[in-house]
């Protein structure tokens, strides 16, 4: 199990690096999907099968499909690829990388004090459901209201105004 975890983690890290350095946007997106699927495997290994499946369904299966949908519409060609290459020059990423390295060092320092996680216990669907609609019901309802607002505004924006209206 622990081997599976490290394998999936390695895939996730490498795929995420691939997302950053890839100049072809579709390939970058493929790496991103791979990274998300690897994260789903990590969730499963850590004993959260529901989270793993939702990661695969919602992130990899729905949101990334919409990303790909938008990329199809944009008609990106050689120009964007060249531009992407130019942005990836050493001068561009050196400073952000340094800053990120500082953050990584801090994270490692903080994580050093944390006790090792136990992976023996499985969080089933029932447990997640009773938690969501028990102690966290207010947060769930607020989130659903937010989503409803998003839905209504999306409908409003996408509505076709016919010449006869208003």
């Amino acid at each position: 199990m622990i081997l599976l975890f490290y394998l999936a983690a390695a895939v996730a890290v490498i795929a995420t690096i691939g997302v950053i350095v890839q100049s072809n946007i579709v390939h970058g997106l493929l790496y991103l999907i791979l990274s998300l699927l690897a994260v789903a495997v990590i969730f499963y290994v850590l004993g959260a099968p529901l989270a793993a499946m939702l990661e695969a369904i919602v992130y990899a299966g729905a949101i990334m499909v919409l990303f790909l949908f938008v990329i199809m519409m944009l008609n990106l060609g050689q120009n964007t690829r060249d531009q992407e290459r130019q942005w990836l020059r050493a001068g561009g990423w050196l400073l952000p990388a340094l800053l990120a390295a500082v953050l990584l060092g801090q994270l490692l320092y903080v994580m050093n004090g944390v006790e090792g996680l136990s992976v023996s216990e499985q969080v089933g669907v029932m447990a997640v459901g009773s938690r969501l609609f028990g102690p966290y019901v207010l947060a769930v309802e607020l989130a659903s209201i937010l989503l409803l607002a998003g839905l209504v505004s999306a409908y409003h924006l996408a509505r076709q105004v016919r010449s006869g209206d208003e």
Partner: protein
Amino acid sequence: MSSFAVGSGLSIASILLAVIVLAAMLIWVERRLLGFWQERLGPNRVGWFGILQVVADMIKIFTKEDWVPPFADRLSFVLAPAIIMVVVLMSFAVIPFTPEIGVIDSNIGVLFVLAMASLGAYSVMLGGLSSNNKYALLGSLRAAAQMVSYEVFMGISLLGVVVLAGSFNLRGIVESQADGWYIIPQCIGFLIFLIAGVAESHRLPFDIPEAEQEICAGYHTEYSGMKFGMFFVGEYLGLVLISSLITVLFFGGWLGPSFLPPIVWFALKAGFFIAFFILMRAALPRPRYDQLMSYGWLFLLPLSLLNLLLTGVVVLSTL
């Protein structure tokens, strides 16, 4: 080793072999049945009743040149047909065929199938996008919208069954149908799942992504040889998968009177639905793209939510 058990090597190997051979045979079965329903004969020359037509098709497809168009995006172009095969074959892992035959007993079987179905959309989209072809792009645009939309209703229509069974485990769902199949309390859910399943495997009448009359061959316009063959067999694998899922979720899986073994009951039920899907292909015309979308969002989505709500009310009131 020689006995069947869930997850045993023999079980896995026989499922894989049976499913792939069945999917290949369906090429012939479908053409033959379509022939009967259209007052034609269908392929009947190669072998007995044309049964070796599959072998002839395979020889043709395998010996074709493996060609990638120079204007295509090579990585995604090669990856796309593999995705659909892998994803659909993975879905068969959680299908319980009989009490003994199956690959895994997952507590999240239903979710796993949904996850795999949603990943299947990439195959079609990448295939169309990487071809660098107008028709292929149109096909994959349509496929993206169609598959993302119908996934929603597919998931919600399943939830009624999940609520009744109290489990995401497909084997548990079958076992809980011992005293009554879910088709009776969940007939609306069944209809929605049937429609969404056809749309999800983009078969006729919902083959809008590859509508030959409108956009050439849609997303697989540029494909030929074995890469096309994988799309082709993948479609039939999807057909077998949807039929098996309907059998498991709504028609009691392997359950049936004991004068026939469980696997025969499963095969009979799944075979009935495979034939029904082929009948749909023979009979029904293709809707327009916008009709498909508005039918889904304005009719199926409210209906499936209503079905879930009613199921929840009934289950809660009988607790």
